[in-house]
């Protein structure tokens, strides 16, 4: 069972490394909660203004400006085929790295809300499609989607 990060601490370097790798940011995307690897999360900000790209698939909302740079914005709920939730009261843009470490790119995800930081042990994850959807795991009484952001840049 996953647990809030602040409630436990590891012993030794291996434990600490394992905990860091299993630390995720939980966000709400439509009907689902999703876990993003915290090491790949750069910023969480109030939803950025997005400029649409004509002809883009629904997953790509468009482009935004962030820190003086152009930022592609993907709709997280669409990426995981989640039904839309109620109108979010505090929608966010989560700025993340995607792709393999040697070729990572910065993009933004739109999400309905940022929830909390949790630890998800690897052995708690039920394998998913082996790509962007790494699997599912129980967190706080809810099954959450564990996302593999390296795969999003790799599966082209």
């Amino acid at each position, binding site marked *: 069972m996953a647990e809030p990060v602040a409630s436990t601490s590891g012993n030794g370097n291996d434990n600490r490394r394992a905990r860091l790798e299993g630390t995720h940011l939980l966000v709400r995307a439509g009907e689902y909660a999703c876990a993003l690897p915290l090491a790949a999360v750069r910023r969480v900000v109030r939803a950025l203004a997005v*400029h*649409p*790209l*004509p*002809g*883009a*698939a629904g*997953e*790509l909302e*468009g*482009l*935004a*400006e962030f820190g*003086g*740079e*152009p*930022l*592609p914005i*993907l709709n997280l709920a669409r990426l995981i085929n989640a039904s839309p939730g109620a109108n979010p009261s505090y929608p966010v843009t989560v700025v993340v790295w*995607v*792709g393999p470490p040697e*070729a990572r*790119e*910065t*993009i933004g995800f739109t999400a309905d809300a940022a929830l909390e930081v949790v630890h998800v042990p690897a052995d708690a994850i039920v394998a998913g499609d082996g790509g962007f959807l790494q699997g599912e795991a129980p967190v706080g009484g809810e099954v959450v989607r564990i996302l593999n952001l390296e795969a*999003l*840049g790799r*599966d*082209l």
Partner: protein
Amino acid sequence: MSVPHAPGFLLLRRAGGVWGIANAAVSGLARQNGGYRIATGGGALAADEILGVVESLAVRPAALVMRRFWPEATAGLAVHGALPVVMVDPSRPPAALRFEDGEGETDEGRD
């Protein structure tokens, strides 16, 4: 309306987005009904509004992940002010920018 044949970029608005094209690729610019027709070596482009010309832009390659969800070719991405700008490859312009013959008659300008 003249087009400065100088280093820099022409910025335009079309289909809700802001686009940039290198001045060197532009051979003419003419008003059309309610918009503009931009002549380039790769064909005519359409614009709803001309935002101006800038001397320089920091052009970055478009993220590879964009290709998965947007099939159009680009010459990169940039930011002007707080606006993201898609740089147009004049030899492969996005469909949204292609000038269609039925868009209106030219009423002034030159090519």
